[in-house]
């Protein structure tokens, strides 16, 4: 087995008296789609926030490709190759759909302030490349024809896709998706599953995903962890987990 791309060791995060994550450990192998599920308020989003540096943990360690990223800032996390989407969509609402993606592409754009101010040939070339790259991502998510629209005027489902495109444009190795299928109907969820699979194949990325739609989790995830009160309730393949009585009692409920 190869080295895990993401590893969390005994991570703890408290908010006042609330232990949002407690002694949490996790290993994600490269190339997998890993699911993170659990009841509301179990601490899933908080885990994402600690990985991406939005919150800093109170105890424990987070390793990314063997490197300690416990104390990184959000933009550093992005530069290391961790991209994410947000549970409450956070687009650059007043900017065009295309700019949203371009801004992410820019992370790796190779020109300097001097180039920009003087519009050197390098600036022109890189800008053109960036634009093309952005369009490519828009094509992948099927928003190519909406490039000039304001991001906030897109319907909810499209906004989700745009957020994914934007995250992908940073060229990540690990993609964190926070409830990508929220607000989608069954059909759309299926489409999303296909889309995420395609992304994974095409860009060779690892995906860590929070999701409440069990059919999405079932069809995508190679393995998953169930979280409850900040602690691991169960971990394993989706099939195993679905049969786990504790998980059923705490999370799935009767009929699914």
């Amino acid at each position: 087995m190869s080295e895990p791309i993401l590893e969390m060791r005994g991570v703890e995060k408290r908010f006042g008296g609330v232990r949002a994550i407690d002694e949490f450990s996790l290993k994600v192998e490269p190339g997998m789609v890993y699911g993170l599920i659990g009841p509301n308020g179990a601490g899933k989003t908080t885990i994402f926030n600690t990985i991406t540096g939005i919150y800093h943990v109170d105890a424990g360690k987070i390793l990314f490709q063997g490197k300690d990223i416990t104390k990184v800032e959000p933009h550093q996390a992005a530069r290391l190759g961790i991209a994410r989407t947000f549970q409450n969509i956070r687009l650059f609402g007043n900017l065009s759909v295309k700019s949203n993606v371009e801004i992410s592409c820019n992370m790796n754009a190779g020109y300097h302030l001097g180039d920009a101010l003087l519009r050197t040939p390098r600036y022109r070339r890189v800008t053109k490349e960036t634009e093309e790259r952005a369009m490519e991502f828009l094509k992948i998510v099927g928003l190519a024809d909406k490039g000039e629209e304001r991001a906030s005027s897109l319907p909810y489902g499209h906004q989700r896709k745009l957020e994914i495109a934007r995250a992908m444009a940073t060229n990540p190795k690990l993609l964190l998706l926070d409830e990508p299928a929220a607000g989608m109907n069954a059909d759309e969820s299926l489409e999303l599953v296909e889309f995420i699979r395609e992304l994974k194949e095409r860009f060779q990325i690892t995906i860590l995903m929070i999701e409440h739609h069990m059919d999405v989790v079932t069809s995508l995830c190679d393995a998953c962890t169930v979280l409850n009160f900040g602690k691991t309730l169960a971990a394993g393949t989706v099939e195993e987990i679905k049969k786990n009585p504790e998980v059923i009692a705490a999370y799935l409920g009767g009929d699914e």
Partner: protein
Amino acid sequence: MAQELLRVEHLSAAYGGIHALHDISLEVEEGEIVAVLGANGAGKSTLLKCLSGEKKFLNGSITFDGKPLPSKPYQVVENGMVIVPEGRQIFYKLSVKDNLKVGCCLRNDKDGIRKDFERVYAMFPRLKERENQYGGLLSGGEQQMLAIARGLMAKPRLLMLDEPGLGLAPIIVNQIMDILKEVNEEGTTILLIEQNARKALKLCDRAYLMNVGNIVTEGTGKELLADSTLMEAYLGQ
């Protein structure tokens, strides 16, 4: 026959140049649960925005309890129609308790309010635990619970919910359906938008199916569930 509570006739609405609703007509009878289903961008939320007085519509009419819908959102609430809006819309600087208090801002029956507090806390024990936390610091799902609970606190005649199951754990979604059933049995009429068509149809008395700003069909929940071509065409199931 039950009495008609809400009637929407030939409603159309637009955002700038984009038409989001074309000539929509529907009605809700007292005591019913009516679901509105449809894909992303079909215009469901826009419909509820019109009904809650938040969005001005272009044409058509809305009558509630025989009277035309007033123009200000708070007047709509005074009439007894309350919405649980899309995207939770929690008062993030208010505590959970205060959020709920705002929910019942038009009520004056102290005892009733106290009882309802107990009741929603019983429905969502999570909220009781977080009673004094700022709403904005709740997890996504907890916020959703709070939004629903806040809507219930208003004790409306017609409760409108825009995707109440969004971001909730499956077990909670099931609970919510039960809660809605219960509330309905106590006399509240419900207009529900839900992405999980199967669950919604099981719950509702009648449903409307929307597609890109139009109503394509209507029927009882059972009828629609049984119509597999329809389900596949519009809901992908």
